[in-house]
């Protein structure tokens, strides 16, 4: 069932990696138990900055989860055969990312034992309710898709016809999970940094840059570790997608900066001053991170836009790393923490994540890495069976690309 047995067979490198991740997860569990008994005061969050690293990571990872659509859309909707060997990897990345999202929300709860209250007392006017529904649904959707397609492949048959509408459903659903997450922020009248219509488009653009960038890195890593090659054309197409998304994201950022700085409205400018230009009494950590994020974005654009660099695999790796880090800082820290500065009463309260908080976050990432390791092991083991991938979906069978 679920072909788990395929993940239990591996070499020393595989087991060393898995066990290392287990240790990290165990350390995080210990920190979490301390957080449970003491309270969230163990983190660096405060009365004025009530969301921090946990919610920031959740926001970023929803984007990574949604980005699977950038592979699913061309492959399943437009029969772009290049992505044949990559699609399953994208789906597994989505499952791991959504699981990490759910975990990050869970560790951020003040009363985690009561989290089911969200389902027991459904509240349609709350965006957080819809976020839970859409994330849960997306997880189930991708799990079903991955399981069915991989099982079919293992048996050497085409997947059942009903999986195609399910796959097509995952496309708008992917867009919706990130839009709903953006709605968490962009509907709050008191937070001027977030109260902008461009927040959801910005989220999507940065998601479609950071997610596929990570996927490219994972594919190259897989090839180096296992010899499983998704194909250079798949990687180069995905790199083009990352480029376009990054350009659009940079454009959106410039739009935000123009509206704020040209209108000179204090409540609008202040956040960007805290993040990028610096103001007296401002938070140093946020200023440093904001500037790094912008600088990395510029470097990433340079490397991605120039074809000579983008087509060179080594430069592409650098470009993807820089893209990912830039957007991780921007969405994972600056966006969430920046929205709380200044507070509704004008105070700028410094936020520095504490060690337990960082450890718990790292442990959630480790758990996600563990999940993706297991998933990829299963997928690759099935594929290495040498069977031809006969993907029906009511269209012509697609052979396994060599």
């Amino acid at each position, binding site marked *: 069932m679920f072909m788990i047995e395929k993940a239990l067979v591996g070499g020393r490198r595989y087991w060393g990696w898995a066990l290392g991740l287990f240790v990290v997860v165990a350390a995080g569990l210990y920190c979490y138990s301390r957080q449970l008994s003491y309270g969230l005061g163990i983190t660096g969050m405060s009365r004025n900055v009530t969301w921090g690293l946990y919610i920031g990571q959740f926001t970023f990872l929803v984007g990574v989860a949604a980005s699977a659509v950038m592979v699913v859309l061309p492959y399943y909707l437009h029969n772009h055969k290049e992505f044949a060997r990559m699609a399953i990897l994208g789906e597994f990345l989505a499952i791991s990312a959504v699981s990490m999202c759910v975990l990050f929300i869970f560790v951020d709860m003040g009363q*985690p034992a009561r989290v089911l209250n969200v389902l027991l007392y459904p509240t349609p006017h709350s965006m*957080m309710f819809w976020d839970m529904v859409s994330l849960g649904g997306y997880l189930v959707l991708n799990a079903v898709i991955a399981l069915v397609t991989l099982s079919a492949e293992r048996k050497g048959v085409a997947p059942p016809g009903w999986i195609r509408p399910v796959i097509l459903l995952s496309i708008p659903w992917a867009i919706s999970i990130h839009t709903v997450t953006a709605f968490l922020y962009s509907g709050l009248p008191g937070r001027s940094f977030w109260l902008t219509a461009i927040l959801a488009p910005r989220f999507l653009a940065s998601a479609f840059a950071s997610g596929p960038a990570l996927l490219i890195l994972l594919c190259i890593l897989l090839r180096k570790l296992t010899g499983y090659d998704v194909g250079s054309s798949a990687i180069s197409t995905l790199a083009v997608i990352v480029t376009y998304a990054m350009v659009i994201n940079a454009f959106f950022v410039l739009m935000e900066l123009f509206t704020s700085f040209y209108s000179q409205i204090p409540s609008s400018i202040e956040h960007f001053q805290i993040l990028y230009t610096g103001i007296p009494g401002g938070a140093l950590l946020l200023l440093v991170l904001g500037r790094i994020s912008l600088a990395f974005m510029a470097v990433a654009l340079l490397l991605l836009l120039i074809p000579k660099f983008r087509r060179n695999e080594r430069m592409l790796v650098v470009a993807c790393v820089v893209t990912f880090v830039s957007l991780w800082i921007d969405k994972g820290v600056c966006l969430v923490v920046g929205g709380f500065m200044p507070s509704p*009463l004008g105070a700028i309260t410094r936020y520095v994540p504490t060690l337990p908080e960082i450890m718990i976050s790292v442990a959630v990432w480790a758990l996600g890495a563990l999940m993706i390791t297991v998933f990829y092991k299963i997928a690759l083991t099935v594929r290495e069976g040498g069977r031809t991938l006969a993907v029906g979906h009511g269209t012509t069978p697609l052979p396994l690309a060599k």
Partner: protein
Amino acid sequence: MKMTRKRFLEIGGVSLIAVAAKKVVGALGNEATARSSAPATRWAMVIDSAKCHKKDGCTDCISACNKTHNVPVIKDSLHEVKWIWKEPFENVFPSQNNPYIEVALQNKPVMVFCNHCDSPPCVRVCPTQATWKREDGIVMMDWHRCIGCRYCVAACPYGSRSFNWFDPRPYITTLNADFPTRTKGVVEKCNFCEERLALGQPPACVAACPEKALVFGNLAVPRSEVRQLLQSRYTIRRRPELGTEPNLFYSV
């Protein structure tokens, strides 16, 4: 017709959708009807700044509130819990401020607490209805249901809400057995002393103020003290442009 697996799944699926739809429509409908009926009670408060400033350094209302509701006194400002407190004028009314504002307003603090808005963003965002707007206008909190997500804290444009970052009991100076404390992991705020209102008493801060600067009453009654005060002088509210319709009026 013979029951097949396919038919069973079809019936099950349709039933599930029907049940879910009913719940959703019901929830949406409830919100609509609640707003359409005219209120018999609309609690509000008018704060007379001139009277409040008469006694320098007075914190009687804050002490009364803290004592009545077991509000912990946490010195660490990062994790403090406060229901009512003082803020400088320019922080409370940033859009009313100017560089040449009268000295009296510059140097005297303003009392701030939950505005019990008519259109509260905190209620809109709460995923479990742990906070909701009562028919009499009070924005209530149910500490049994709160999951501590702090979405309401993010949503409040006034910074009125506090989260319990750890167990507050060690920081409670005077334990009042008539009112529960809160536990770590839930959000709290001023509740307009709804438990005292149920007994026909005024809010603790109103009763404690030596200058009678806090005037509490029912906006739905045309001749109430609050209505008369509001009609007789100019009052401002915090960030009215946001459409929250606060029920805390400041006469400056």
